[in-house]
């Protein structure tokens, strides 16, 4: 069915690239902002590592500053980089294209969601310049310490942080409404839910979770803001702080933790599920093979998403909550490992008997599998309540969440960027730089985080500014810390390879085909590359098959795009029919 735009293509530079309602432009705005924040977050981590690796050599990393760097690093990476990039960046770009729509269903709201995100970024960055500096309460912002004088940034710092988060939540809600409604309503003819690529499923499920989980952060953040500014006692019990009796009474710090982690656990899956979805597509395309067990993959995404709401207190095993909760949450946490394991098996079985091209996206996809396996397996230690007790608040936890939240999804981010770069820009990236970027990142991050698990076993606690004269910590730990710092800086600097590669290739890269990877999903079938206003020209595509018709027996080519009907598929031999599956 033909469809003409409800609005004409904008003409001026301002309306095309700045105040734009086009999902592709908004996606790039989100992505550039998120990547910039990622660099800021990385800088924060360098400052932390300088102190950990070379204690007392760098005067500017005072204990106060250390905790501020630590907090900003965590919050920026989790929320302002990963969530914004996967949902606002990848989600905005891919969803309409992959489902065959012309744009998101609420383009104006979509545009507003970016500008609210941008505002939340400005407010967060402002916290570096307010009196007292940014908050140093840890990204988890636990009360009472977050708003008391013993913690850096407990005045304007925490206020700006909470305000920024509230604004971000408004942005995320606006975005989430768009992504969910678009997937439900705007799929083109023939695109049933079970024909959507897994990238869409991952982002779709993550958006639903975001809509339900962020309110919990809003509730806890608002209540803490009121405790700070209006002297309410939502979370603040009777306290003697620095020798002074405070006015608070009766509040419960544990209430905050429950609310925060009710958000916080789904949040990590909001980051992981899009990564799962995208990596399925990367593997499938670059191994020329259908994804193994598509239905199970969809169901496991849904199951993981749903179950992620009933595991939150595994972050609270030693919080002093009712100890009997430990039984329940340990059980649900280990159950969630089953659908996750299924996904890993299916990725491997997709590669099995595939036709594997070790392109840069495929390298990162393989890197994801390897690092996600380690990250997920160490999660089993922490999910099992009794094993968590000695390991809680040690470097084992730090190693675990960096592997599973930091490294693995970032591998997918990189893989996805390289994979879709030719579509977004119309040009090819530089292969050698991409390979170098992969190797340094993969080997480096492994060297950083693998040994870290072991000092966690030893019992070295996290969130410590220094480790002077502990009997149980041998000097070799200091050596390890220095080593990790050096590797971290090398890996960090090597990310410039990506930035340089993208920047240069955007303007000087070789012109790319419309479908250089010979992929099947709809975004590769647009009439122009990069896709123009309205994506599809005068007519939206019609879909006749799922997204994974690779190497179908009987077909001439090893891929059949989703919008080619059976009668138009070039056959290997005249008269010999296709032996695909009926989808």
């Amino acid at each position, binding site marked *: *069915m033909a469809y*003409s735009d409800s609005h004409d293509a904008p003409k001026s530079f301002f309306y095309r690239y700045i105040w734009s309602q086009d999902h592709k432009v908004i996606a790039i705005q989100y992505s550039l902002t998120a990547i910039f924040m990622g660099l800021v977050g990385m800088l924060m981590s360098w400052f932390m590592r300088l102190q950990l690796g070379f204690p007392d050599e760098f005067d500017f990393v005072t204990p106060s500053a250390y905790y501020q760097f630590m907090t900003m690093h965590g919050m920026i990476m989790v929320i302002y980089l990963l969530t914004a990039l996967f949902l606002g960046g990848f989600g905005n770009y891919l969803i309409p294209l992959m489902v065959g729509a012309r744009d998101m*269903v609420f383009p104006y709201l979509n545009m507003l969601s970016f500008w609210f995100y941008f505002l939340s970024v400005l407010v967060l960055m402002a916290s570096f310049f307010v009196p007292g500096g940014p908050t140093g309460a840890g990204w988890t912002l636990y009360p009472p310490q977050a708003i008391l004088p013993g913690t850096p940034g407990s005045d304007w710092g925490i206020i700006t942080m909470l305000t920024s988060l509230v604004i971000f939540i408004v942005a995320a809600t606006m975005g989430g*409404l768009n992504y969910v409604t678009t997937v439900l*309503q705007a799929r083109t003819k023939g695109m049933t839910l079970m024909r959507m690529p897994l990238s869409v499923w991952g982002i779709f499920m993550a958006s639903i979770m975001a809509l339900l989980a962020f309110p919990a952060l809003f509730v806890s953040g608002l209540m803490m803001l*009121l405790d700070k500014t209006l002297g309410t006692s939502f979370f603040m019990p009777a306290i003697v702080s620095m020798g002074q009796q405070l006015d608070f009474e009766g509040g419960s710090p544990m*209430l905050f933790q429950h609310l925060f982690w009710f958000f916080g656990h789904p949040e990590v899956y909001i980051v992981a599920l899009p990564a799962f979805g995208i990596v399925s597509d990367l593997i499938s395309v670059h191994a020329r093979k259908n994804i193994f067990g598509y239905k199970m993959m969809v169901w496991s995404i849904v199951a993981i998403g749903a179950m992620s709401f009933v595991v939150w207190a595994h972050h609270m095993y030693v919080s002093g909550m009712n100890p009997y909760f430990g039984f329940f949450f340990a059980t649900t946490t280990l159950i969630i490992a089953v659908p996750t394991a299924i996904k890993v098996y299916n990725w491997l079985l997709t590669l099995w008997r595939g036709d594997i091209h070790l392109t840069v996206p495929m390298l990162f996809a393989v890197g994801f599998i390897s690092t996600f396996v380690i990250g997920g397996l160490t999660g089993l230690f922490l999910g099992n309540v009794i094993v968590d007790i000695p390991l809680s608040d040690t470097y084992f936890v730090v190693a675990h969440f960096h592997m599973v939240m930091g490294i693995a999804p970032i591998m997918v981010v990189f893989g996805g960027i390289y994979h879709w770069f030719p579509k977004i820009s119309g040009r090819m990236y530089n292969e050698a730089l991409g390979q170098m970027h992969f190797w340094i990142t993969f080997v480096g991050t492994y060297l950083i985080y693998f040994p870290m698990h072991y000092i966690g076993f030893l019992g070295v606690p996290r969130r410590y500014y220094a480790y002077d004269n502990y009997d149980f910590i041998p000097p070799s730990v200091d050596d390890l810390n220095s080593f990790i710092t050096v590797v971290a800086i090398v890996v960090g600097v090597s990310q410039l390879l990506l930035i340089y590669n993208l920047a240069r290739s955007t303007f000087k890269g070789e012109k790319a085909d419309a479908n250089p990877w010979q992929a099947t999903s709809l975004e590769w079938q647009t009439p122009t590359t990069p896709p123009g206003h309205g994506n599809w020209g005068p007519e939206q595509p019609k879909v006749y098959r799922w997204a994974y018709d690779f190497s179908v027996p009987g077909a001439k080519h090893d891929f059949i795009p989703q919008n080619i009907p059976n009668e138009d598929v070039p056959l290997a031999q005249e008269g010999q029919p296709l032996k695909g599956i009926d989808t």
Partner: protein
Amino acid sequence: MSNAQAQIELANWQQSFQRRAQRTGLRVFMVVVSALFFLFTVAVITRSQYSDWQSLAEQPWQPLFDPWQLWLNTSTLIGSSLALQWARQSSAKGQYRSAAIAFWLAGGCALAFLFGQIWVWFTLASLGYVVGANPANSFFYVLTALHGLHLLGGLLVWSKIAVKLMHKTPLPQLSFSIELCSVYWHFLLVLWLLLFMLLTSSGETFNAIANFCGF
């Protein structure tokens, strides 16, 4: 099919597409708002179990024991919903005048509700029940404020439609928006009724709910 007919069919399809999307969007949004207030309710009930909780409605001298102001506000809000429902039905029947009157009435009542809520705030504050004094107070202010903000958001959308009504935009172009408006209004009314019950509950009620939920 002639070109003109095709164009009309296309326009109709576009419109019904957009309407389906808006309806779904509103539903998803209402789920999110429900989640938000549900979580706040959990927070209220949890907090009510701590020793320093003092319900605002238990004893005759407490301000919400006989909350006539809140009842007044509630009836204003009910009036607003009724008016909007009337507007919706009138506009479906093409009755311009009554739709317009009803629509304006609905907005007026909603505004009256908001002012009425602020009036309750001032009353409480003047009696000494300020926001930081006691958790029950804090929750009262926070929850009524959030509900009010959501209603204010609805009023923003309402004002866009009201402007169109002033410019005598034909009803068929407006009736869908009025319909969505009324759905949102009824949702906020139900939400308010639940909040009203929660905020004027006695300590016993809180304990009963908490026990039922297992904490």
